[in-house]
Structures are given as C-alpha cells and as structure tokens.
C-alpha cells in the first residue's frame, strides 16, 4: 500500500474499518452454520440435546483455534512472499 499518499491512506482506512465489521459478522454466521451442520441432526425435538450442545461448544472452540492458527501461518507466508518480491 506504500503508493497511497497519506490522505488516500486515511480514506482507505475507513474502508478497512467498515470491512472488519462485516468480516466479523461473516465469521460469526459461518461458525453457526458449520457447527449446526456438523452437530445437529436430530429433529424429533426442538431443543438441543446435551450431546448436541457439547458438540456445538467444542466445534466453535476448535474453529476459533483453527482460524487463529491459520491466520498466523497466513501472515508468515504473506510476509515471506512480500520479501521475495523485493519489498
């Protein structure tokens, strides 16, 4: 982004902030979808069973840890790639 001047960077920053809120919401709703899809399969009742509740909890904990680890590796790879490009 080093070719944006400071006024352009300020404007871009606003775009980034707006997107971060959307990213967080997408993370949240993807997490609900994934754990519902993987954990909830009994529709003879309209309440989550204890087994389903425990699965949802582990699923979301695991997904957040997963996402954090992938994020760390992503940043490392990204940094390595930027360096290879001579920046």
């Amino acid at each position, binding site marked *: 982004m080093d070719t944006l001047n400071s006024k352009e960077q300020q404007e871009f920053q606003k775009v980034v902030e707006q997107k971060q*809120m959307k990213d967080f919401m997408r993370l949240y709703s993807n997490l609900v979808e994934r754990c519902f899809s993987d954990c909830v399969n009994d529709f003879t009742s309209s309440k989550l069973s204890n087994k389903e509740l425990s699965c949802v909890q582990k699923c979301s*904990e695991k997904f957040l840890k997963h996402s954090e680890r992938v994020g760390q590796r992503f940043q490392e790879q990204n940094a390595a790639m930027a360096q290879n490009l001579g920046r």
Partner: protein
Amino acid sequence: MSFLGFGGGQPQLSSTQKIQAAEAELDLITDMFNKLVDNCHQKCINKQYNEGGLDKTESNCLDRCVAKYFETNVKVGENMQQFGQGFQPGRQ
C-alpha cells in the same frame, strides 16, 4: 432485529456510522436467514420431489430446525465471547 445489541445507544457514533451499523445488522440477519433456508432445506427436504407441497414430516422438521438453529446461534455467540477475547482472524 437485534441479535448482538447493535444500535443499542452508542452516543459517540455519527449518522453515517449509525446507518452503517444498522446496515451491517440487516446484512447479518439476511445472511442468517439465507443460511437457515439452506441448512434446513438440506436437513429436512426430500430431494426426490415427488410432490410440490411440504408433507407433515418435512413441516415438523422445518419448525424444529429453525428453533435449533436459533439456539445454536445463541450458544455460538456465548462461546465466541468466552474464547474469542482479543481474537484476531488473520488481518492486522
């Protein structure tokens, strides 16, 4: 229309920011509704398509599917608050 308490009185926000927050909330709800439609279709609807109506089994399944999706939504929200403190999903 208020899953996560957005719009709940934040006096420091400008008009534009308040509308953007309302828009983000609307997007979240629309997105949740679309995912609900997809997931409950997958869990409850017979793909043979022998008839165009919903039979009793499908209808009952759908009602419970929506209820369980909402309960999952609440639980995941609680888990995110518990585990997700200071969580940074890959962009700094």
